[in-house]
């Protein structure tokens, strides 16, 4: 019988012996925290001090007797207050918070440095290096040592949650520290940049905007892909970029894809982005994920078994942020239940957290979602017909099968009505090329991908 079960039995027995209000007031939310096998002392946790005093003084005999009925090894009982449980007895009258309307600004609690916008928690020391990001890391280090000269601009790209922001902020923090604040660093996101442009256009304060972004020695912009397709922002950014670049000021940019693949980006910006150093960050391998997990566990002072850690590293593959989420949930679970987590529960947590379904996607799933998306019958996709409206969907299907299922070209051809593998190669390359130019196509593929993950 585990502690939980034992305690439920005890409560069941006690409940019939005391009045219901008393039971609800004093013993609801109580727990058996543990038992010392050697001297037979059981430790009972209660939600607050009042309950602790009351139970200790009034129900001690009852509880000890009842515990001994189920577990004869119990010799005595100690009581403690569990913190972190909701206090059931809430009498404080809630003052109605005034409706202040939106405009009242809240105090910001982040530790972000207001001048540089950098969050000091991102440092090189806490950045874990593996084969997937060592190029980007080395380039970032080089930038710190040789600000504005060596790799300018530094363009980092990679998928969601792989540590682009961490790396860029680490560069900013390292520069800020190394030159003890003499070098002005500014970190901003492209969303903020866009807002700044919009604000300054509306308020006719373009000069402020220019001053803010051009009077810096290091400008770091996160998620630059979002400025694509916003002409005024692109223009402003173009001028900012030139002004900084001419004066050998360092520029660091990040994006979720290489400059060539940002569809709406103007050509002159694209060529500028490509003029410096482009480094990618890819998915971390198993060893690296394990190293990241272990570091996080150590930093948070958690107690998680190695087997569990290894299991998580094996299961969560694509996103470091997801690793974080899983870890936090496990920490929460262990704290609440006060027991170690097992692999089965970990799997449940991963299931809940994971945005990508772990289910395998098959070639047929791809075909189905493409035919659903374009609203053309599945057969038309496979049949020989070369009607204009089926050609592109068919090519997209081929592209997706190649890109995501890593199927061989002949196999894809097989699936799509015994087509030749050269046809498939042509389709794949065509789509890949067009994606870099046609945002419409890009959007379509993104939507199909989302649908696929939902299946």
């Amino acid at each position, binding site marked *: 019988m585990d502690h939980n079960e034992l305690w439920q039995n005890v409560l069941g027995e006690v409940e019939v012996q005391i009045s219901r209000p008393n039971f609800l007031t004093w013993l609801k939310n109580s727990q058996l925290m543990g038992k010392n096998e050697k001297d037979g002392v059981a430790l009972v946790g209660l939600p607050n001090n*009042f309950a602790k*005093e009351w139970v200790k003084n009034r129900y001690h005999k009852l509880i000890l007797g009842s515990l001994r009925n189920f577990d004869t090894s119990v010799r005595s009982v100690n009581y403690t207050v569990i913190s972190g449980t909701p206090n059931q007895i809430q*009498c404080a009258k809630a003052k109605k918070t005034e409706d202040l309307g939106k405009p009242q600004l809240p105090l910001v609690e982040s530790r972000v440095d207001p001048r540089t916008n950098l969050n000091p928690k991102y440092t090189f020391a806490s950045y874990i290096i593996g084969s997937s990001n060592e190029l980007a890391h080395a380039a970032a280090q080089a930038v710190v040592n040789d600000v504005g000269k060596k790799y300018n601009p530094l363009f980092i790209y990679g998928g969601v949650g792989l540590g682009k922001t961490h790396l860029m902020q680490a560069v900013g923090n390292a520069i800020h520290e190394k030159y003890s604040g003499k070098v002005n660093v500014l970190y901003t996101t492209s969303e903020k940049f866009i807002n700044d442009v919009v604000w300054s256009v509306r308020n006719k304060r373009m000069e402020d905007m220019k001053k803010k972004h051009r009077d810096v020695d290091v400008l770091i912009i996160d998620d630059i892909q979002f400025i694509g397709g916003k002409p005024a922002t692109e223009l402003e950014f173009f001028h900012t970029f030139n002004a900084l670049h001419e004066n050998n000021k360092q520029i660091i940019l990040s994006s979720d894809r290489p400059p060539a693949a940002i569809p709406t980006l103007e050509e002159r910006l694209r060529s500028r982005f490509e003029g410096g150093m482009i480094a990618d960050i890819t998915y971390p391998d198993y060893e690296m994920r394990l190293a990241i997990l272990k570091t996080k566990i150590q930093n948070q002072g958690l107690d998680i078994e190695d087997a569990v850690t290894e299991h998580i590293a094996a299961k969560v593959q694509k996103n470091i942020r997801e690793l974080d989420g899983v870890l936090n949930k496990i920490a929460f679970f262990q704290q609440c239940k006060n027991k170690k987590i097992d692999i089965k529960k970990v799997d449940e947590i991963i299931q809940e957290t994971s945005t990508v379904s772990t289910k395998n996607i098959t070639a047929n799933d791809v075909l189905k979602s493409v035919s659903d998306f374009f609203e053309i019958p599945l057969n038309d996709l496979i049949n020989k017909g070369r009607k204009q409206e089926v050609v592109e969907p068919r090519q997209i299907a081929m592209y997706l099968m190649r890109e995501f299922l890593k199927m061989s070209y002949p196999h894809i051809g097989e699936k799509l009505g015994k087509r030749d593998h050269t046809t498939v190669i042509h389709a794949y390359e065509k789509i890949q090329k067009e994606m870099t130019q046609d945002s419409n196509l890009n959007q379509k593929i993104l939507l199909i991908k989302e649908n696929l993950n939902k299946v």
Partner: protein
Amino acid sequence: MKLILLKTNIVEGLFSVERATGINTNLPVLKNILLSAQNNKISITATNLELAITHTIQGKIIENGRAVMPAVLFGSVIKNLNSERITIETNENTVRVITDNYEATIQGGNEKDFPIIPHVSDVKNSIRVAVDVFLESLGSTIIATQYSDIRPEISGVFFTYSNEKLTFVGTDSFRLAEKIISGSGVASTFDEVSFIIPLQTAEELMRVIQKSDDEVTIHTDQNQVFFITKTKFVTSRTVDGRFPEYQPIIPKSTENEISINRQELLNAIKLVSSFSGRTNDITISVGENKKFIEISSQEGSLGSSVYKVPSKVKGEIFSVVFNWKYLYDGLRIYSSDEIILGVNTPDKPAVIRDPKEPSLLYVVMPIRK
């Protein structure tokens, strides 16, 4: 139990404890007070299982004992009596209140049902604070605190002792008040300790503890905090959770500083506030020559008003919008005539400071224009 008490003493005791009685719980005994005579001490106690208050009163004990009776009933009997000398006698669960020309028998409860009040477990360690300093500090920080279901960790006053300083902090995420006590006002045997007391506890402390109490001794263990004076004993659970890191919120410096007469600014705000809109917004802007500031408000359906207050301005010409209530609250916790209002940009926190009293600080966020 048999006691002879003075009416004023009982009324005083009832005043202290009455708001700690519990309502709406499934434990009816919480509506009662406990009257106890033991070890030559007479005390009245009430609790709602979150907060407990005991007030020791003077009187003559003829026979020791304990009695539990409804707080409201006992209160209305005592308060309306016109004799000063009252005899209280208990028999089983009934309480008799006797004066020369009046006698009441109150149906009480079983004293064994009354909750047991937690006692100080760590007697050795305490923080001692002079009562006037305590009340002033708690009073200054409580105004910035508000009850919040969403963020329980800020719906209370944060106490922290370290480096021989006791700091009080209150915030509702739009403003923050901090008061630091050091030197002769505070003595502690803790090296470092911090806890959050619930807002209701803070409010009751303000009500119950009086200047005549001399000194407040604070004890705490992890989950419980005790405030003890000569005649009062207030204990409460502490708020679970960690108080936010508030230091980085406080601006290190302010670019624009207005040095101004506090009373005049208070008057101006009060007057101008009549024309403020739903968000309580008033605008503070620096006038030409930087010789005065303008406090103004306007609301389409009401009209507008402007008030000019002479002041010394350091920095540039600017204009910031505030919630007048927040500003008014902040100004009221100061006592000096001259205060400084420090403003950075219209979207950064502003600070109210008293050049003569650096231990008190009030930070307030503006309203977006």
